[in-house]
């Protein structure tokens, strides 16, 4: 298994998943029209990574915009992480970064944190 790196551009977010450190990061804008297709390699990587128990994971979201289609994919990622923590001894921390004047991005993070049982840090920058 190798690190996952996707260069961000236009409607595609930058993805950097680091095996050695357990720091998984997604950043930028995500508004691909077919997010099921775009996120498939990301889910494939995550499923392989989470097959090994007891990992300590820091998942950083540094998004400036994502569409509603992406919003579903993020919820699926949180569900995977929650399940990993509950059933496979994983320790997961989610860092949700938002530009300090971006009230909508803060609210989006708050709403995800209500929907899943994960340690959620809402971090302005």
């Amino acid at each position, binding site marked *: 298994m190798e690190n996952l790196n996707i260069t961000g551009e*236009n*409607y595609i977010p930058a993805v950097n998943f680091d095996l050695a450190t357990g720091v998984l990061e997604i950043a930028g804008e995500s*508004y*691909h*029209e*077919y*997010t*099921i*297709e775009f996120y498939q390699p990301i889910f494939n990587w995550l499923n392989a990574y989470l097959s090994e128990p007891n990992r300590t994971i820091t998942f950083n979201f540094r998004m400036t*915009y994502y*569409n*509603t*289609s992406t*919003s*579903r994919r993020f*919820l699926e990622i949180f569900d995977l992480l929650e399940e990993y923590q509950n059933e496979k001894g994983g320790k997961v921390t989610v860092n949700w970064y938002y*530009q300090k*004047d*971006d*009230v*909508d991005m803060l609210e989006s993070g708050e*709403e995800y944190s209500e*929907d899943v049982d994960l340690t959620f840090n809402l971090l302005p920058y």
Partner: protein
Amino acid sequence: MDKDFKVYNFYKQMQVNSVILSFKGAVSQDLLSRLAGSLKKKSIKDDPNIGRRVFGIFIELSQNVHLHSAEKSYSLAEDRPIGVGFLLVSEADDCYWVSSSNLIKKEKVTHVNQRCAHINGLDEEGLKAFYKEQRRAPQRTDSPGANIGLIEMVRKSGNPLDVQFFDVDSENSIITLTVKLDKPR
């Protein structure tokens, strides 16, 4: 083109109504990211939160056209048929108007109309609950969309959806969807 159609009149009407962006055609991913990027630059100058919302609502409306318009055009770049429609953004002193127009099959009109009416009837808490419920609902098999775009637009704008339908022929209507975004006072 009708012999009475005057490009100048069309242009003037857009000027008078402070149209800052209009596009008719196939709404591809690349085109959308260019249009949305330029719109963000223009609208973010007054208030970053309003600018981001104009940007987001424009993207949601455009992607509705891309996915759901009954008029399609084959895109070589994307290797699939993509929706054709009309996008319009105008700016008044106190608000922005973002709208989309496209063909819709007649059999879908009632469903879309009822969904808009339902969403327009919800208060803030109701919208949040409906958004979360629909985001948790299984992915529709007939569409890659999230089925929460209309709710999102009402939540972000704080205004109801203005949806209208116009007859075209026995099979198709035109749907226009307009979202008003108030500027901060």
